[in-house]
């Protein structure tokens, strides 16, 4: 069987397994980020282009907590999303909330501009080469899987993000709060008539979406260089993931996130030069054949 796999793929099987696993790990980041985007788009109808900057802020806040307050990784995992989520709440109240009645494009331009400004401020303050952030002692080291050397931390990233994705999905699909949220998306005045504070709910939803981005940022801090452009590199791919999965579809964005991570990982073996482009090729094909995305409602 293994020999057969090796013959048809042209790549030693252990290497192939390793790459599938690494693809899943990157997919975990895509899934978490596109989840936040999908939640925000689904309920606010805002295409949140600040998402990459908020992911970056999550990583930077983790670094600041450690360097300035002595709070380590585990504390940052809770505090950083709260802090960055709070800045999201402020941005929503002060600026984004004024745009709900306008075309999507205005929200996109506003959040894109805010993202650029946040990045610029961090770049001026911290430079571009990044800050060191170490893997927590409990998760350092690696397992020897035989076919690959698997860092424990990367395993943790996959498991943790799966749990978060599942929890978010459960909250939105299976709880009363989630029911309110979904109802408000369909018909806000009616839900308000039942005594639900819809504007506050929308604000908190945006904050939660931003917190998800920041959480992914904290997860990324120990493995990627913590630098101001770390979000830019990822966010364009994540937007493609959201489009492929279907704008606003929560389960779709999660499944597509992991799936595309694997596709990208395999491309890195067979045609490394194309690994940055493959996701956009898929996006083009999906848009041509299923404009609403794989899991979207047309």
């Amino acid at each position, binding site marked *: 069987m293994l020999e057969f796999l090796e013959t048809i793929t042209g790549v*030693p099987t*252990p*290497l192939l397994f*390793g*790459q599938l696993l*690494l*693809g899943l*790990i*990157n997919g975990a980041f895509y899934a978490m980020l596109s989840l936040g985007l999908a939640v925000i788009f689904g309920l606010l109808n805002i295409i949140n282009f600040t998402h990459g900057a908020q992911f970056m802020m999550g990583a930077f806040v983790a670094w600041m907590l450690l360097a300035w307050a002595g709070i380590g990784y585990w504390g940052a995992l809770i505090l950083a999303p709260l802090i960055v989520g709070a800045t999201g709440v402020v941005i929503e109240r002060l600026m984004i909330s004024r745009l709900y009645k306008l075309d999507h494009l205005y929200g996109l331009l506003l959040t894109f501009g805010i993202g650029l400004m946040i990045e*610029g401020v961090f*770049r*001026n*303050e*911290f*430079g*571009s*080469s*990044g*800050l*060191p952030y*170490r*893997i927590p002692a409990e998760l350092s080291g*690696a397992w020897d899987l035989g076919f*690959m*050397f698997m*860092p424990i*931390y*990367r395993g943790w990233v996959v498991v943790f993000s799966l749990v978060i994705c599942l929890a978010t999905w459960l909250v939105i699909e299976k709880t009363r709060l989630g029911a309110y949220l979904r109802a408000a998306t369909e018909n806000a005045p009616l839900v308000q008539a039942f005594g639900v504070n819809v504007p506050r709910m929308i604000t908190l939803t945006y904050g939660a979406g931003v917190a998800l981005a920041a959480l992914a940022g904290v997860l990324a801090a120990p*493995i*990627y*260089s913590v*630098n101001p*452009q*770390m979000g830019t*590199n*990822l966010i364009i791919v994540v937007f493609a993931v959201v489009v492929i999965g279907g704008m606003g579809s929560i389960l779709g964005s999660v499944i597509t996130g992991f799936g595309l991570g694997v596709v990208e*990982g395999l491309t*890195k*073996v067979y045609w*490394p*030069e*194309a*690994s*940055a*482009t493959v996701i956009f090729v898929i996006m083009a094909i999906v848009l041509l054949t299923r404009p609403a995305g794989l899991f979207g409602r047309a």
Partner: protein
Amino acid sequence: MTEMNRRSILAAGAAFGALPLHRARAQAANSIKIGVLNDQSGLYRDVNGPGSVACVRQAITDLGATLRGMNVEVVVADHQNRPDVGVNIARQWFDRDGVDMVIDVPTSSVALAVNQVAREKNKVYINSSGATSDLTGSACSPNTIHWTYDTYMLAKSTGGAMVRAGGDTWFFITADYAFGHALERDTGNFIRAAGGRVLGQVRTPFPGTTDFSSFLVQAQASRAKVVGLANAGGDTINSIKQAAEFGLTRRGTKLAALLMFISDVHSLGLETAQGLVCTETFYWDLNDNTRAFTARVLPNMPQQLRPGMGQAGCYSGAMHYIKAVLELGAAAAKADGAATVARMKAMPVQDDAFGATSIRADGRRITPAYLFEVKAPGESRAAWDYYKLLQTTPADEAFRPLAEGGCSLVRS
């Protein structure tokens, strides 16, 4: 409003408009303009960026009274590591803004593109932070001086040292553009000449790759003794960080950071970077002169970064250019870029950052190459005390021999 009134207002406006123009012309007679073109916002920002600008300004400050009243203006632009953007800026600078010399220009693809423009417009081009050795080889130009380092020198110093230490099988992780290709090619030549073998390579998309784990695992699977990183800046930092995570070095594989700057080491931290070897032509703590230069420029460096070799090269290059302009006279220097470069080649280069060096006929400035090892955390005694010197290659041996580059300016 009467006719008289309107006419007088028009006349006054015209006179007012002409006034600054007149003054500008009077100034231009004894004035030159330097354009610093580099990465101000992306992954190479800390290795050149605003630090290079500070170093150019420091050269002007240090020349002080010797300028004899000549006005040196500095303009800055961000080429975003994109050749089309870099070429547009260079054209606009030369055609419209009166820029006489462009300096720095990291990212080899942009460096080669701007090389063409400077030659076409007969201006001066001092490349400090670009690496491809083609700038003084197949693409050499009478308007260009390659100032600080190149892929051949890095390959010979770092690559050569690693092969001598027993690393005779290599796998390259290469940034997929002109720079990575040139560095991989030049290093590969040294490995093969020393009897070693290149087992494979993987080309990573540039810019935009943040996760190198997949490539590192491929490198590991090749069972090569050395993984050569033919990339720079943020790419090198991410590669080294993730190589440590995936246990490459713990399993005996050696990493060759073929182009690494001190700001990269600072970002990685000594814990991760210790033991890596790299080649630079400048280190802030090399001698009294380099320390004095660093102390002068430090207050103006972003984030208090110590200058790296690309930035120090901007200091040295700008200073030498201004000295040549002073000898030729600003008007003559502005009129003929190639003549200015010819004068720069004829003059000895002398400054605090590099000491006494010289420029060859092919436009290559030659300077000693220092092979450093990154210190362990316990060995570092002060802030930014990162390197210990392993070996010095003299200037005339450090770079590709004049006859081998294929530069048309060199008569065989």
